[in-house]
């Protein structure tokens, strides 16, 4: 540490980077011996992560109860909590293989397609669609990709090399979204390496990377691949008004050859040629992005392609709340993975499976660590990544619901989906309108955005007072609350239904007692009010908003 240059110490504050580095090293030394290759993918994950518990002298939490797990797996795969019927069905299922069966069922559901489409459309074009970009086109592309379970390498190549009309080839919307400013494809370069290769090279635009040997020239070599991209924003005449209005956008390849020039910090100009991982492409190549696409999936140097590792890390992070690196899209020698062997094995098997996305998710969701409860005890209290520790995956980490998950979960919890309005598009646009209240743009070339759906007051106000919540609790005829409260039966049974619908679990005896005691304050005529207020409380509870 003492040998680090002064400025590194100053900007890192202290020795964090270094201690993380050592943690990573100690972990990767705990190999599983020669039998490892014979283990199935899931067995390998389980054994390797188990090894980490032993090395760190902790004991994992217990396996989660059915109620905790079913809610979690619905949220992670289907993007919403299970409905009352779905919970009941799962809880009463006595098959020993019901977990695997449910994972398979969910992966074959429309909700999986919708959830992953949302996640990837948000990744690629943000929640607030940039100007002259078609969200419809982008979503259509991902919807087809996930519904047909297209191999991920094909999906990535389509996105990175896409050309054409933004609704006919929805993949181009990714490129359009990264080209909001005339910045010589700098943002497109930075985003592509980050999103699909898990490499953050954006700082090397201006200088060499401070913590690894990535050079400034490398950024511009990547950039060279994207310099033939051009977007055209077509206009047309509106026949009714006679005015010129926006028509479609399009990505085309333009004639560009030769090197790219960039300025060193010293002020010297330098040239860069299209080079990826040491392989140089003929600068006169007709379409450099196509060449880039080929290099992305090539594995001839014996290493697992970065697109596989990057995707595996993201999916793991999505299911566990923490990936193998932090952040998930910053992998490299300066930022060692918590479980490099698991990452490598999953990525290699993902490639062998021909980039089968559903297979990958199934491995992750069927693993033992994914089955553990989110409660932790004295034996694994130190496994606390939110305090900055390396994740050991000895219990499930609590995540906050994403805004879309919340919206869809409220619909599940309140039966609103049964009133069956509109198709995919109509539902999407309704949800999108609702989302807008939480999204603010930074107004930069990075096209990044801030959300107020982040556990702060605006989110709390929405949960307490919004139209969406009012609808859920107002007990109109036909709604879940109305049906439950007005049907014959005891309070205790009705309370159970409310808990199951909102929290996917039955209330404890003491919870029923407490609720009944509170109910008495509402008097005989206030029963409906009491139920409304309880349901409001369930939806506003920490347990509801957390994925646990």
């Amino acid at each position, binding site marked *: 540490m003492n040998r680090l240059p002064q400025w590194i110490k100053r900007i890192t504050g202290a020795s964090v980077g270094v201690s993380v580095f050592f943690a990573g090293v100690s972990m990767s030394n705990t190999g599983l011996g020669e039998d490892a290759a014979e283990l199935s993918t899931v067995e390998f994950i389980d054994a390797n992560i188990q090894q980490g518990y032993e090395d760190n002298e902790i004991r994992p939490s217990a396996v989660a109860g059915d109620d905790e797990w079913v809610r979690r797996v619905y949220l992670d795969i289907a993007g919403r909590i299970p409905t009352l019927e779905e919970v009941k069905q799962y809880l009463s299922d006595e098959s020993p293989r019901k977990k695997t069966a449910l994972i398979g069922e969910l992966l074959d559901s429309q909700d999986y397609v919708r959830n992953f489409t949302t996640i990837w459309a948000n990744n690629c074009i943000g929640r607030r669609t940039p100007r002259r970009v078609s969200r419809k086109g982008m979503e259509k592309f991902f919807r087809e990709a996930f519904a047909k379970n297209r191999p991920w390498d094909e999906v990535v190549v389509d996105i990175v090399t896409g050309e054409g009309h933004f609704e006919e080839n929805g993949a181009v919307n990714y490129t359009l979204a990264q080209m909001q400013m005339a910045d010589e494809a700098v943002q497109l370069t930075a985003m592509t390496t980050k999103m699909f290769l898990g490499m953050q090279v954006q700082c090397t635009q201006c200088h060499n990377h401070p913590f690894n040997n990535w050079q400034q020239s490398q950024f511009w070599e990547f950039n060279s691949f994207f310099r033939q991209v051009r977007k055209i924003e077509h206009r047309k005449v509106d026949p009714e008004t006679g005015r010129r209005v926006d028509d479609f956008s399009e990505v085309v390849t333009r004639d560009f050859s030769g090197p790219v020039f960039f*300025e060193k910090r010293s002020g010297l100009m330098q040239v860069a040629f299209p080079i990826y991982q040491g392989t140089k492409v003929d600068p006169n190549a007709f379409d450099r992005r196509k060449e880039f696409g080929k290099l992305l999936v090539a594995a001839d140097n014996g290493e697992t392609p970065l697109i596989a590792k990057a995707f595996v890390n993201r999916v793991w992070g999505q299911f566990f709340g923490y990936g193998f690196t932090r952040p998930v899209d910053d992998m490299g020698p300066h930022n060692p993975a918590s479980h490099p062997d698991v990452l490598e094995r999953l990525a290699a098997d993902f490639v062998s499976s021909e980039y089968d996305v559903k297979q990958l998710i199934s491995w992750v969701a069927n693993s033992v660590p994914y089955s553990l409860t989110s409660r932790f005890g004295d034996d694994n209290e130190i496994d606390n990544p939110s305090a900055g520790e390396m994740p050991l995956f000895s219990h499930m980490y609590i995540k906050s619901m994403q805004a879309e998950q919340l919206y869809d979960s409220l619909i599940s919890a309140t039966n609103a989906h049964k009133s069956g309005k509109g198709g995919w598009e109509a539902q999407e646009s309704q949800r999108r309108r609702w989302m807008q209240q939480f999204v603010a743009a930074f107004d930069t070339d990075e096209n990044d955005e801030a959300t107020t759906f982040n556990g702060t007051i*605006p989110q709390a106000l929405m949960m307490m*007072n919004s139209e969406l919540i009012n609808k859920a609790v107002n007990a109109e005829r036909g709604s879940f609350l109305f049906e439950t409260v007005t049907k014959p039966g005891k309070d205790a049974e009705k309370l159970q239904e409310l808990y199951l619908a909102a929290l996917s679990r039955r209330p404890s005896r003491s919870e029923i007692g*407490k*609720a009944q005691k509170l109910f008495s304050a509402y008097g005989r005529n206030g029963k409906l009010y009491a139920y409304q207020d309880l349901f409001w409380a369930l939806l*506003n509870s920490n347990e509801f908003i957390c994925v646990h």
Partner: protein
Amino acid sequence: MPIWNNYGMGRRHFMQHMATAAATLPAVNFLSHLQANAATVKANNKACILLWMSGGPPTIDIWDLKPGSKNGGEFRPIDTAAPGVQISEHMPGTAKVFKDLSIVRSMSTREADHGRGRYFMHTGYVPNPTVTHPTFGSVVSYEIGRSRTALEIPSFVSVGGGSGQAGFLGMSHAPFVVGSDGRINNAPTDDAKKRLPGRLEMLAAVESNFIKSKRGELPEAHKDVYKNAVNLMTSRQMAAFDVDKADPSFGLEAETEETKAMYNPAPGGGAAMGMRGGNGFGQSLLMARRLVQTGVPFVEVNLGGWDLHQDVFNTLSQQRLPVLDRGISGLVTDLKQRGMLDDTVIVWMGEFGRTPRINQNTGRDHWAASWSNMIGGGGLTNGQAVGATDADGVRVADNSKAYLPGDIWATVAHAMQIPLNTVHTSKRGRPMKLANGGTPIKELLG
């Protein structure tokens, strides 16, 4: 309208529940707050208003012009009220009030990526994946906001968002984000307010179980945020967000047309900016002043549209600068007239500056090596330009000290009387110095 009086539940009964079942949810302690008078607020009325220029402003065209250099651009410098200090010709109003402002011309910050620059400038720390550093507004909320017991609205308000996170100081110090119109989304209806006590009792009963089971800090944070949200919902101080509302108990008047006009360019100039937050900026600053008046110690106001990779000069002269100029001069004048300027420090910054070299699209790109911040009010020794860049603006001048955001925030801390040796502890138990151990800029100290 007594909030506890519904469903036959008496106040005493209700308060008992709040005290026992939910010491966690002091929903209705607002009464005692209301009775506290403005004098308590006055006792410590230090505040900071951060003008955040999202996108990275070309400070070489605003605060540190280089006439005669190849990088000089199209604008001429003009004199200000502070002898020897010149700024852009498109900032005439600001020039007039410059005795109360200062420029730091030798910022050198290394981070030229929006996300990283935003984080560095707001926190004083370089992004680090294992820890979330608190944005400085959260630090102020933690250090000063907590002791302002009469304050019912959040002690860190961000108008326009993007201010960062509270990190290890906890969710209750996160910025409360509102739009420039000050409208609070999903404010409660009267009916919802009436039902709140019953609902909160139910909530306390439902939540306690999950909080007690060991699951980390999210469930706890949720509870804290709800407490703040309930305080806000039931508070009359909400009037501070609405420039047309009066509430004499906090000395708030409905703003007159004259006051509004002070903050906004005349119609036509800059009014064309629409959704890019042009005209909203003046109103946001006016709201910021009202919030400070009510006792909020940190308000951040966002003005976007600075990522000028192309057409920088037209955009500045016709859009950005008229709005900025009017906003700054209006704010300084208004604060001064009300006797609030010496207690309110104003900071102006963005993620980074922009390249001295003008690119082929008549734009300027990202540049962190040599650029300017502006600071003023707060009882500092103003009317000066601290530090300098070289003749072409490409580096900090040889005889000049280079400054980091930590130095700016240390100066703010000094002005707000937050002890500089304050240390916070990260979740991992690591000590974190205030403003990353930055040093107040000595030229600015009185």
